[in-house]
Structures are given as structure tokens and as C-alpha cells.
């Protein structure tokens, strides 16, 4: 069975991206991998007490992302009757989505056009545009 990877966050465009991917998955007999990436850099500067609590913080961030972002998206896939899997990753969102697609031997990546990044996206460009430029497999950007 072939796999489609959908990068999701807390935005409406993400919901539409999942709906789009689920519909294609039904027709093509695909498995849907929903991934949320918590923005994180291995080269940031932190205080010692932030470091002390980092491992616990990661667990909390992961649980929160599952509960608030991935669970509602998984419902869409569940209702659509397609096999699905949910992942929370930490890293640079565009690179991490490509890595996940590589690990899952995916045939396609789907993302919403605008995410919940707000100012960060306005300044540094959206995850969608980075994916379109850097991914080595087809990317669909859902408006």
C-alpha cells in the first residue's frame, strides 16, 4: 500500500489538506500519515533550567500536539475509512516532513497553503513554499 504524508498544524488550511488527502487516499488505496512538527532547533541557546526540564517539556508538547491537533485530524481519516497513522516530531517543519516522507517511502506530500505560523511565516516564508522548493517527491498545496 502506498503512503501519503500530510503535514498538519492548528490551521483551517490543514483541515482542508487532510480532507483532500483522505479523499485521494480512498480512491488510490493509500495510507495517510499525519505528521505535526513542533518547531525546534538543535542549535538554540537555553538557560540551564530550561535544559533541565527539556525532556519533560518535549513529552508535554508531544501530548498536547496529539490531543489538540492530531486527534481531530485523525477523526477525519477515520471517518473516511482509510488506514492512518499519526506522528509528532520536533525539528524544522519542512525538512522534517520530507524526512518522514522518506522514512514512510511516501509517494506524495500534502500541506495547507498557510499554517499557524503567523509572523514567522510572513518573515521566513511558509512551510508549503519550502516543501515545494526542496522536496524530492510531488507536493500538493491545498488553499
Amino acid at each position, binding site marked *: 500500500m502506498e503512503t501519503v504524508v500530510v503535514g498538519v498544524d492548528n490551521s483551517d488550511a490543514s483541515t482542508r489538506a487532510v480532507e483532500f488527502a483522505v479523499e485521494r487516499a480512498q480512491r488510490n488505496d493509500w495510507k495517510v500519515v499525519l505528521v505535526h512538527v513542533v518547531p525546534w532547533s*538543535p542549535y538554540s541557546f537555553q*538557560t*540551564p533550567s530550561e535544559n533541565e526540564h527539556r*525532556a519533560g517539556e518535549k513529552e508535554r508538547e508531544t501530548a498536547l500536539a496529539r490531543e489538540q491537533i492530531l486527534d481531530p485530524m485523525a477523526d477525519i481519516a477515520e471517518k473516511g475509512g482509510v488506514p492512518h497513522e499519526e506522528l509528532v*516530531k520536533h525539528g524544522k517543519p519542512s525538512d522534517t516532513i520530507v*524526512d518522514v516522507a522518506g522514512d514512510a517511502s511516501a509517494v506524495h506530500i500534502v500541506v495547507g497553503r498557510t499554517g499557524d505560523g503567523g509572523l514567522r511565516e510572513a518573515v521566513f516564508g511558509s512551510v508549503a513554499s519550502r516543501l515545494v522548493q526542496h522536496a524530492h517527491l510531488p507536493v500538493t498545496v491545498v488553499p
Partner: protein
Amino acid sequence: MNPVEWFNDLSEGVTNTVFYSVSIAGADLPLIVVWLVVAGAFFTVWLGFMQVRGPKLSIDLVKGKYSDPNDAGEVTHFQALATAVSGTVGLGNIAGVAIAISLGGPGATFWMILAGLLGMATKMAECMMGVKYRRRHADGSVSGGPMYYLRDGLADRGYGTAGKVLAVLFAIFMIGGAVGGGNMFQSNQATAQIVAVTGGEDSFLADVPWVVGLVFAALAGAVIIGGIKSIARVTEKIVPFMAVLYILACIVVLVWNISSIPTAIGSIFSGAFSPEGVAGGAIGALIVGFQRAAFSNEAGLGSASVAHSAVKTEEPATEGFVAMLEPFIDTVVICTMTALTIVITGAYTNPDASELGGVALTSNAFETVLPWFPTVLAVAVVLFAFSTMISWSYYGMKATGYMFGDSRLAENVFKVVFLVFTVIGSAAALGPVINFSDSMIFLMSLPNLVGLYIMAPEIRNVISSYFDRVQSGEVQQVAEPVH
């Protein structure tokens, strides 16, 4: 008796004990400095000159070449190193070096660099042990450092009671070091700098330096008691930037005086072995060089081990290799830059050097080429001082937590005491502050190094077995994902 007088008396008593010196060739050699240098030399030989064999592995580890991608989101080697370095790089690199050269002449630089290179081995040993014996708490947080390896490591060898005593002694000294070198010295020098740029003796702050101390205490209090993360974050982000700016400014001064570089380097070497006009001659230069290097890079004191122990790794040895870079960055790079700048501009020959004090001397050196730089330096000093205070308040808090079973009350009492000393430090004279800071910080090396010597066989085992596994290819780099 007012608090400042009281402190001056206390400082004198403690200093005379800790810096008990023997007279060699007319120079007073404090035994505690010998203690640290011998440890550096011992671990250099014992671990097989890892300073020479290991740096490539260290850098690969910092770059994440051995990090499991599934560990993304946890503390990386880079982050642990950056946090430890920002606690270490501070006034020792600016003021301490200036003091060393004004007392020991250019030759002190040579001994400082040598002490930095030896310190790499000690730092490697203590930070590896910090990771190996760290404690993981139920909420996922970690506590590590000499308290834990002294207690648990020695207990494993049947020295349970000795381990507990050493661990508690270490914790007490680290609290003292946090309050002294990690706080009062920082506050003192930062205040001096602020007074200097606002007009020196004519400054409206000259008669009321404690006002600056109060502002520092308020800001530090907002971070460590109020949990205002934004202040800490801003500092953590600006400090590396300031460090780079500082090094660039040093390079500008050096390039400006490029024709004098050979003479400066010559005077560093000749001054190391046959200095002119230095009390105690070569031994005098060696002592101040070693002493300032130890104060600056903290190798053998065990403090950095606390900061490094939060790293995510399954192999304690990895953090040893990473931590080894710290004395290199701190002493061999940054301190040497300061030293060259001071030597090349001749700032240390100022007859009033001892009265001017550390930062002013460095400031004068920059002023000869970059007239506007003293203001930037003042900002850098204040920020370095502040980030060092934040790091040391954490070390002190962890030590307090260790002694009182992680009691919140005890930790908060410590934080208040810490802030009170921030204010006292701003008002006290430089001499007693430096002496007290040095005493407390150096005392940490007593229990720490005793423990490291006893556990030396284990340290060598862990470090060399990891190194051998990397050499043999058993430990592989993580494949770079294809984008």
C-alpha cells in the same frame, strides 16, 4: 559593623586559609593552584592526551553527527555546551585576564593557555561523570553534577560515608562559589563598568553603586524567582552575539597593530620564562596565569558538570568529549584574544593598572584603536555578568536542592540570599570581592578532585572504550537524511 565591613573581614579570613601559600624562588605559590594544575596534568596523561586525539570527535558530536534523530526536541550536545559556555565565559575572560597581565606581565598569557589546555582533560572527566551519575526525576527533569557522582560513585566503591561527606562539602562550596565568583564578582565588575561609562568619579552613581546592584538584583530576581523567562531568553540570545562581537573587536585591534604582533608574541614567550619586573619572576607569572585560567574556565571545580548533565545521550563519554571544548573556547580562544589585545596595545604597562582594575584595563586597550568600543564593552560586560549570574544562581540552587532534598523553601531562601549578595557585591571594594570569590570557587575543587582521583580508573574506562568504539567503527555516525 555595616555589611560591607563585615564582608571584608570574612573575605580576609577565608582567603588566608584557602590560598595558603608556600614560598618558591621568592614567589608565593598557593597550594590550591598546584592542586588544579596537577589534576589537569594527571588527567591529560591518564586519558591519553585526548586534547590532541579527540577534538575531531568532539566537533562531530556537537554537529549532531552521532545524535539519534528520534532525540530531536531534547537537549543536544550543542545546547548543553552553549549553556555551559555562557555560564563560563564572563568577566574572567575580560577582567581576569587583564588582572593576570597587570600582575604577571605578558608571560602570564603563556601559562594561562597551558592551564587552559590541561583543563580540557579535567573538564572532560568531570562532565562525563556528571552525565553518568545523573538522576532522572518523575517529571522527566534531570539533576547531575559532582554531588551525585561523589555520593553514588563512591558508594559503588564501598566509600558510602566518604562520598556523602564529599558531596555535601561540594554542595556547600558551590553555594559559596555561586554567591562569590558567580555573583558578587560579576555584580562588582559590572557596576564598576556602568559607573565608569556614566562619568567615572563624577558619575551620579559613583557614591551610590548599590543602586546598580539593586537593579541587577531586581532583574535577576525576576528571572530566578519570578520565572520571567523572556529576560533570560533575551540574555541567552544576546550573549553569544556579544561574544562574537568581542572576538571581532579583538581581531580589529590586532590587525591594526599587525606589525607589533611578533613582538607581542615574543614578549609572551620571553615573559613566561624570564619576565622583567614581575614579583617572583617566572614562577610569579606562572601562578597568576594558572590562577586566572582556573577561575575563568572552571576546569576541576565541577560547576560545568551540573550544566552539561542535562544533555540527551546514552553514552556519558560523548559529553566528556563535548565538554572538553569548553576550556578551549573559554581560555585558549577568548582569554588569549583579550591577552593579545592588552599586550599589543601596552595597556598593562599603565602605572595605575592595579588601581584601574580588570575591566578598565581591557577597555583602555580597545580604546586605543576603537574609541567607541568601551561603551560596547560596557554592555558586553553587563550582559556576560548577568548571564553568568543566572547560571551560577542555578548551580547554587541545585546545590541547595541537593542538601535539602529538593525543598522549594530552601531553594527560595537561597535565591533571596543570592540577590542580597548581588547588592553587597556592587558596593564592596574589588580586592576583598575577588579574594572571597576565588576562595569559594577554588574550594569546590577539593572534594571534586578527590572524588575524580578515586574514580579515575572508571573515568578512563568509559572515555577510552567509547573512543575505541568510534575508531573501530562500532559506533557509527547517523546517516545524513537526503532532502
